[in-house]
């Protein structure tokens, strides 16, 4: 059987001709040009250069997806770029505006704390019960670091989530790229066996954080557990509590975003901690796209399970012909399967119904969103770097 797999792997996914690949890339090309390369009187030269590079980068990656028939490695290039460039741009802006990465309490009181998507699930219950947003930010575009405000972020999140479900975690999250990049470095995992029970931890973190946020009337995850505070902004350590909070952020970042991804080749923060990811899993129930396994083709070689970065494929789920609801739709399992048994799928259709068409339908939506959200982050990050070296 191993020989058969090798033969099939050598065959690889179906490649397209250059002309057809360009044709399929045209809509993305137009969208990229519209987003980044439009003549805009208000933008300076470095922003235009950064926008141009981003547009070419995004179009090229999509072209390669069309040409090679694979998804994961090209998406990963985009995703890691977002993960690396976001902190660069964010920290640079924070230092320029505040002179420190610490959030002064005055900024919180003034509602100028920048809002990211991670606390969204923590805000829902308090908002429903008390009509209060328990985040020290601005609902509408505000001054300072408040940026476009909470409403804009929630709107973007909702739009993307309804289309691609938990695909958010592979195409829109601006934190996950760091650990995905670290996980890609080693050739082999040093830790191979992970207790599947840990897969429930994000749900427990979600439940605990929702309940504690309601009790404390503050976004508990942001205050106590977010590892990405280490590379964005942290609580200004003016007392023992602030010091403890920052130590927790740094330890969690080092452990779950650097060390464990390197040891396991998995996205361990996403798999074992992120409450937003757990919450986002619910959107996989709404999204029309999922990943299915054709039982007629599957030989249970577990290559897909090994490739999955967040353990969303188990023996049981493969036997049932589907990924778990935590699937991030990154495409790693689809690309890893030598028999093309794992494929993109549109709900309501047969498993074997035109998987490449399902992939295209998903990718057009996901990549358009990626350009809109992640692409902007890449462009801003590049503009920051160009500005520093100019």
């Amino acid at each position, binding site marked *: 059987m191993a020989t058969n797999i090798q033969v099939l792997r050598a065959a690889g996914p179906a490649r397209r001709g250059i002309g057809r690949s360009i044709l399929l890339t045209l809509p993305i090309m137009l969208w990229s040009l519209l987003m980044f390369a439009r003549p805009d009187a208000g933008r300076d030269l470095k922003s235009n250069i950064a926008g141009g590079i981003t547009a070419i980068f995004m179009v090229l990656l999509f072209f390669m997806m069309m040409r090679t028939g694979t998804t994961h490695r090209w998406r990963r290039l985009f995703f890691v770029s977002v993960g690396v460039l976001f902190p660069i741009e964010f920290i640079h802006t924070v230092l320029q505006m505040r002179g420190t990465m610490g959030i002064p309490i005055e900024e919180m009181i003034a509602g100028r704390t920048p809002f990211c998507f991670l606390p969204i699930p923590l805000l829902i219950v308090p908002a429903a*019960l*008390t009509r209060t947003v328990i985040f020290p930010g601005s609902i509408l575009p505000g001054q300072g670091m408040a940026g476009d405000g909470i409403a804009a972020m929630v709107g973007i999140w909702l739009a993307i989530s309804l289309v691609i479900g938990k695909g958010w975690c592979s195409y829109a999250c601006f934190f996950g790229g760091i650990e995905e990049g670290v996980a890609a470095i080693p050739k082999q995992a040093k830790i191979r066996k992970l207790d*599947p*029970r840990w*897969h*429930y*931890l994000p*749900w*427990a*973190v979600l*439940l*605990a954080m929702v*309940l*504690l946020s*309601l*009790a404390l*009337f503050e976004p508990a995850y942001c205050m*106590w557990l977010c590892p990405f505070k280490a590379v964005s902004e942290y609580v200004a350590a003016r007392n*023992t*509590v602030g010091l*403890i909070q920052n130590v927790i952020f740094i330890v969690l970042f080092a452990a779950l975003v650097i060390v464990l991804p390197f040891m396991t080749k998995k996205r361990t923060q996403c798999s074992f901690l992120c409450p937003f990811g757990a919450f986002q899993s619910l959107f996989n129930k709404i999204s029309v796209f999922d990943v299915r396994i054709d039982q007629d083709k599957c030989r249970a070689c577990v290559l897909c399970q090994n490739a999955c970065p967040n353990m969303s494929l*188990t023996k*049981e789920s493969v036997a049932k012909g589907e990924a778990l609801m935590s699937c991030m739709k990154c495409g790693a399992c689809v690309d890893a399967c030598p028999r093309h048994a794992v494929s993109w799928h549109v709900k309501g259709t047969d498993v074997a119904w035109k998987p490449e068409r399902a992939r295209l339908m998903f990718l057009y939506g996901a990549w358009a969103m990626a350009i809109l959200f992640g692409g902007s982050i890449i462009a801003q990050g590049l503009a920051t770097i160009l500005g520093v070296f100019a």
Partner: protein
Amino acid sequence: MVAYVWYGDALALGLASGPACLAACGPVLVPSLLAGQSGVVSNLRTIAVFLGTRLLGYLLFAIVAWQVGALASMLIKPHPYVIGLVYVLMAGVLAWYAYAAGRNCTGDCSTAKLVTIQEKGFAQLANDSKKTLAGVAALGFLTGLNFCPPFIVAGIRAAELGSLTGALLYFAVFFAGTSIWFVPFAGLGCVVRNPGLITVARMTMGLVALYYLALGLYMLLGR
């Protein structure tokens, strides 16, 4: 007639403060209910035990506060060491409860399969229901000693009644008002229990226990 006004006031205060009590007790009560048996009646019983012992905690504190004159002088905020100790005890009970809930599952809770728990597991759970209720009772009592702002407001109002019996009755009526808000929690009994859910509930209890432990130690060891 005046008494009716007073106790009407207590009930109104309780009803108005209910959401705050709900928020304060949620981190302890919700995972405890999810880790237990399914069924609305079963959950109602658990909630009743929790609320009953919480009332006991309230009244006990009210008596002590009355005796030392703290209630009448409106200085009812307890010493940080007392709160710290209560938090550490609560963390200990939660951790024990999480451990006990795992033992009650006859091994199924340790699997990663999202399948409905076996009948055998529930039978075992029923046998251990006394142990489970003891855990809930301890948690209720400790949350009763864990003072939330509405409780302090009620304490100040009760002190104006001038007699210990009146103050205790005021507390009891106030408590009844807040308790109505807890009834919807019985709806958690409708959630189908499976090993995955119980594992999540146990992990949540562990996380909440860690939070209370950290908070308690912080208060005990000096801020």
